[in-house]
């Protein structure tokens, strides 16, 4: 019984770290622009497809780390491009126009991918996984790699936000977007950088997800993306640490729900959890209510 629980905890960590990586992208963008980037889930999906293209189409076999960095670079640039083309002109428009534009961009990305690749694809094995057993628990080296890479990226992001000038500018923008330009901070460049970093993390999550569950399809952006969005909300959207916390909570709940109950209850339980948390803590676990002025 205990071993079963411990085994499931490892699986929960794997899923949770992927959710957390995607949730970070939602939360960072919400922090600086107070906008839900509904296209983020589809950027996550593109991360998996970019990995597929790099692994299959290129004649040379790139090492794992190079592919990861390339995927993050490409998806990050794409995220920044979407911001530049579709969101920036709408910064002064009604907020809901930007949200609808984001939904539209997400649909365009998803359905373009669906039209180009109507059937699910399989990611080749990039990393030969070995199974380790100790004290009755099995863990694959792939799981260690996924959790390790995800945690490494999260620590890196935390350092980036707390220790660098970019991080300070980002925090300043989410604290008070009106005053920041007066202090000589190039707001537009910082917002582009935020999108670049957030989308890059999403792309990395897509690749890790593809390694863990090799069947990838165009619709997985919607399925996993919305889940990660819930994770961001559970933690308190706009809060970086909240996103990580929410990701691991959601991953844990989903894995445990499937482990102990019929698997069809998974969505029911995770969304009821979301509703329950929002009823008692309307702004998430680590979030705080926005200032309301009349």
């Amino acid at each position, binding site marked *: 019984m205990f071993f079963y629980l411990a085994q499931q905890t490892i699986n929960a960590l794997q899923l949770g770290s992927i959710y957390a990586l995607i949730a970070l992208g939602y939360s960072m963008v919400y922090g600086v622009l107070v906008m839900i980037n509904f296209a983020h889930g589809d950027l996550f999906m593109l991360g998996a497809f970019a990995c597929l293209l790099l692994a299959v189409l290129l004649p040379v076999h790139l090492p794992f780390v190079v592919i990861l960095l390339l995927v993050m670079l490409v998806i990050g640039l794409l995220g920044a491009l979407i911001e530049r083309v579709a969101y920036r002109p709408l910064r002064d428009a009604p907020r809901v126009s930007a949200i609808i534009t984001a939904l539209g961009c997400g649909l365009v990305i998803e359905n373009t991918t669906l*039209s180009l690749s109507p059937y699910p694809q399989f990611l080749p094995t990039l990393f030969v996984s070995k199974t380790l057993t100790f004290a009755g628990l099995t863990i694959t080296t792939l799981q260690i790699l996924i959790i390790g890479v995800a945690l490494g990226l999260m620590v890196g992001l935390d350092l980036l936000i707390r220790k660098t000038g970019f991080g300070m500018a980002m925090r300043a923008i989410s604290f008070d977007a009106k005053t920041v330009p007066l202090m000589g901070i190039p707001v537009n460049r910082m917002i582009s950088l935020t999108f670049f970093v957030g989308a890059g993390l999403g792309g990395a999550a897509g690749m890790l997800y593809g390694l863990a569950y090799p069947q990838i399809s165009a619709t997985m952006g919607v399925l996993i993306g919305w889940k990660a969005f819930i994770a961001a909300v559970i933690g308190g959207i706009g809060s970086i640490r909240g996103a990580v916390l929410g990701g691991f909570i959601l991953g844990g709940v989903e894995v445990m729900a499937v482990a102990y109950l019929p698997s069809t209850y998974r969505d029911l339980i995770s969304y009821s959890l979301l509703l329950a948390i929002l009823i008692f803590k309307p702004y998430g676990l680590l979030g705080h209510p926005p200032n309301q002025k*009349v």
Partner: protein
Amino acid sequence: MSRFLDSVARCRWALPALVSAGFAFVVACEFFPILNDYSKVVLITVGINIILCASLNLVNGYMGEFSVGHAGFMALGAYASALMTIKWLPASFFELPMGVLFGGVVAALIGFPLALLSFKTRGDYLAIITLAFLMIVKSAIENISYLGGPRGMTPPVLTTLPWTFFWVVVTLWVIRNLVYSKFGRAITAIREDEIAANAMGVRVREAKILAFVTSSFFGGVAGALYAQVNFFIDPKSFDIVKSTEILVMVYLGGIASLGGSIIGAVIFTILLQVLQPLGTWRMVILPLILVLLMLFRPRGIMGMRELPWFVPARELFKRLRP
């Protein structure tokens, strides 16, 4: 020319005349072979989409919330009416109207607690609550074997063009009268500034409940009509993609505008049919149109404006033009 259009627009008898002509046409379609079955189904879909659009516009446009759960109300209405028509009612003339009414009532009953939740949060967090609501409805239906579970149900094909037209007229009539009433002003005041509205003595809670319940009732009605025309419903037909489709129509047509809802629904449905040969590419083109529209006209085609026929005469002449 514009003067002529203006006088037509202000004609008070034009709308009743149009409605009567439309009704005569749809009834004639029922008895004479004017349209083939395909065109009829397209027209019924247009009607259902108008109902969906107008009812979602009440919450998203006039009240300024962002609900993404409208497909959930559709699902409730569809399944409630399917239960009526498949299991509980004998086949008769009243089967469809009873089923549709029941579907609307069930959706409205479930919409009520959602309104209560909207007291606590608004904006993005309310959007998330409606999303959770939608997902809970979908996975609850998937887990109830009495409702067919993931396999869905096969209700009889009962929806006819006249019934759809009737419900479209009822929806537009009710929402139009609501919007230009005291409650309508309260709803608009909530959109502009909830706290200020509250301070000015607007009964915020009553107005929110009324808007949410009305909106979910008609969402249920549309779902019920949808169930009786498609021959098959399953939980997957009412997922986030369906909600997104309704949102696209609403914002394409324009927020806070019934005329916009009609235009958005008609354009979206017809384009989806016209672009049929493109296969899945049409769901690339339509969102692309929406994005471009948002970039150049952020409020949609008819955003914050109204067809003059829907505006009461006393409002037409004192309206401030922005």
